[in-house]
């Protein structure tokens, strides 16, 4: 019953999405005022999609094995939180989450928008409905989450042990809210291109949506990186895996969009670039969804290997992005730009920022798809991995980081103050660190050697907008910007320290023998069997010391039965100046155990920086939204005019 309710809700929602789209067409072709109706339809559509999702959560919570999806992905012995999280730890469930957020965002767009041109908003709601319609069709036709499995088997196949982790509860939903939140920017851009109302008002309407989606994307990517780091046991945090790249590309586009919107809002300029970025950002989200679900890539993240679903998604992608690009090509000529910017001004700074981010985006896109292009054209197989991306995107990112320190200090229109004098302190800081690095670590790689001083420069420069004025009277948005840019610097410091100063030791160790890594001496006390709720394990007891007290770490190798599998659980201890990361491996015939140890100084700064960036976004959003909500919504005004 619950499953059927969910399915019915989904069909109804799809019907309403079609109606919503129809209303938009009517509004654009005639003079009928559909404002209240279309908002109501959007709201109900959102509520219905949410209902469907809640029904899915319920069948997972109750371990209802008569629903095929629950059978495939769950088991009664699973801890409750993973029963729930299992709902979105598979293709159909996560697709339903995607669609729920899509229609939910549309509902919020309709109900909460204030200072937006009415015609553009209606057009945007119609575009959002069109997006939802395609994905409803995909769900209902090719990925039904509520399909029944009768007669119901007694128990399920279980959830992949790699996914039985708190990270699973957090990482996908956050990412999805981010990806799909960008759909609102897409719809607003399409709506504005249809109505011709591309101006500062549109930028201000888009901004909170882009800020919100971007903040969540930042958090989601940071969480994903940390999860991979501690779960997979190889000590790395970013592999330039095609699917990781698929999550990075919308983020890069959204960051460029965020900054471009500021120019459009403040100066009414960069119309074409902003519209294009808004379309590209959500297009990248859709490309990511396609890559993960089509089976054309092998990856830790890949869902079911299914070319038919891939074809469906590719068709959706082609239609939506194609339509948006055609609209841009046709209407682009009507976007009038103003006078050129002064060379030293904030606008120029933001334009160069856009340029660099777009180039990095292009590089990541090319590198990810290049093996495919080459194979299609010549049949030859080659690989593009971390060495390429680090070599090419790395230096560009560092140049960008320097500009991030300078840009916020520039005035709009034309910079007349001696801005570069303000930067002497951060610049000196950077140069000092650069020189010291030669003394402390003569054998450092080029990227960390340059990255560390740049990061220190940025750390100093990012707080300058608050220096020399009363910080408490600075706009909240400025605080947000400062925190976010500081977060970039913190993250860069972490990356440079990790690249330059990580120590790794790998050896076969017998009980009561020690191994040193960095400043630590680690003793393998013993290895014992143990068990958890749904696994058995062998656990090593390690005693680590660096002169002041002993820390105990217990890495494990776990053996699961549903499905049968073996995982490594690293034992990690975090200190103020780094992390001790320990992994126990296989037994050696000589009576010892393979032990792998890392000492990673300041590595946690990488993710602390990511959280700071997201925090900056959240702060900025509160500032903007508060300012917007003080004004009365336009559509209400018109009723009583």
């Amino acid at each position, binding site marked *: 019953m619950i499953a059927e309710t969910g399915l019915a809700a989904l069909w109804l929602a799809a019907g309403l999405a079609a109606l919503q789209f129809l209303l938009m067409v009517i509004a654009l072709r005639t003079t009928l005022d559909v404002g209240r109706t279309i908002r109501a339809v959007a709201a109900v559509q959102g509520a219905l999609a949410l209902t469907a999702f809640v029904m899915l959560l319920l069948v997972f919570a109750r371990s209802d094995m008569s629903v095929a999806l629950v059978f495939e992905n769950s088991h009664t012995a699973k801890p409750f939180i993973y029963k729930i999280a299992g709902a979105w730890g598979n293709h159909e469930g996560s697709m339903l989450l995607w669609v729920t957020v899509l229609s939910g965002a549309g509902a919020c767009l309709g109900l909460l928008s204030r200072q937006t041109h009415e015609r553009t908003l209606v057009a945007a709601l119609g575009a959002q409905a069109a997006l939802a319609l395609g994905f409803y069709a995909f769900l209902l036709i090719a990925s039904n989450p509520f399909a029944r499995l009768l007669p119901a088997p007694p128990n399920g196949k279980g959830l992949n042990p790699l996914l039985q982790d708190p990270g699973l509860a957090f990482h996908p939903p956050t990412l999805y809210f981010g990806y799909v939140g960008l759909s609102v920017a897409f719809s607003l851009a399409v709506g504005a291109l249809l109505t011709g109302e591309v101006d500062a008002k549109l930028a201000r309407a888009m901004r909170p949506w882009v800020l919100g989606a971007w903040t969540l994307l930042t958090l989601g990517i940071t969480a994903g990186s940390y999860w991979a780091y501690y779960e997979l046991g190889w000590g790395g945090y970013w592999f330039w895996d095609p699917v990781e790249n698929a999550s990075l590309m919308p983020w890069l586009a959204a960051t460029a969009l965020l900054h471009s919107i500021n120019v459009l809002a403040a100066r009414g300029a960069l119309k074409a670039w902003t519209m294009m970025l808004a379309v590209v950002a959500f297009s990248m989200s859709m490309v990511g969804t396609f890559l993960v679900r089509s089976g054309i890539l092998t990856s830790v993240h890949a869902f079911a290997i299914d070319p038919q679903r891939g074809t469906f998604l590719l068709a959706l992608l082609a239609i939506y992005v194609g339509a948006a690009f055609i609209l841009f090509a046709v209407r682009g000529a009507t976007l009038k730009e103003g006078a050129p910017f002064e060379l030293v001004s904030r606008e*120029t700074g933001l334009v160069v920022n856009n340029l660099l981010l777009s*180039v990095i985006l292009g590089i990541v896109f090319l590198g990810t798809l290049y093996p495919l292009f080459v194979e299609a054209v010549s049949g030859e197989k080659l690989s593009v991995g971390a*060495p390429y991306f680090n070599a090419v995107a790395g230096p560009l990112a560092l140049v960008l980081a320097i500009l991030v320190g300078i840009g916020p200090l520039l005035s709009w229109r034309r910079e007349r103050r001696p801005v570069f004098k303000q930067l002497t302190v951060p610049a000196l800081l950077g140069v000092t660190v650069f020189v010291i690095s030669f003394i402390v670590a003569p054998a450092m790689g080029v990227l960390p050697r340059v990255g560390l001083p740049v990061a220190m420069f940025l750390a100093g420069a990012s707080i300058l907008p608050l220096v020399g004025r009363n910080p408490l009277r600075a706009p909240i948005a400025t605080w947000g910007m400062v925190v976010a840019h500081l977060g970039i610097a913190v993250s860069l410091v972490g990356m440079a320290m990790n690249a330059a100063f990580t120590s790794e030791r790998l050896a*076969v160790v017998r009980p009561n023998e020690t191994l040193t890594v960095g400043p630590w001496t680690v003793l393998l006390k013993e290895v014992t069997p143990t068990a958890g709720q749904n696994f058995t394990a062998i656990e090593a007891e390690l005693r680590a010391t660096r002169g002041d007290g002993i820390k105990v770490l217990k890495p494990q190798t776990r053996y699961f039965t549903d499905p049968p599998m073996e995982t490594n659980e690293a034992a990690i201890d975090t200190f103020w100046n780094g992390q001790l990361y320990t992994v126990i491996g296989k037994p050696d015939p000589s009576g010892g155990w393979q032990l792998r140890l890392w000492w990673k100084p300041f590595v946690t700064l990488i993710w602390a920086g990511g959280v700071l960036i997201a925090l900056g976004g959240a702060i900025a959003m509160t500032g903007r939204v508060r300012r917007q909500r003080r004004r009365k919504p336009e559509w209400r005004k018109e009723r009583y005019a």
Partner: protein
Amino acid sequence: MRLIALLLALMLAQPLPADSNLPPAYWANRQLPDARQEARAQSLMEEVRCLVCQEQSMADSDAELAGDMRDLVRRRIAAGESPDQVRSWLIERYGSWVSYRPTTEPASWPLWLAPLALLLVGAFLVQRRIKLKARR
């Protein structure tokens, strides 16, 4: 990463990476005594694919063949070969696909030229928006 190895193994209808009865090779999971050689070996291993669990590097993979490859790489580096020599040796046998670092063959040139091209195109698009000459 065992799961991935297992899933991929089940999907490939061909050579199955089942487990043998012998322990891993000596240098599969031990570091070379010379730290500089070990560092060179390690960075090479991170740039070469595991042949069995695709989408992982030789350094991170649990597969037996990956362990044997690590053993081979460490032995060769210890014997004095340069990482480039070992990489070329592996590419001769498995093709450029096995190296995550794109090679210098013509098929890879667009990869290295693209950033430059993108910057130039971007600069062209941007220069129209900026007043580059001082107005009198």
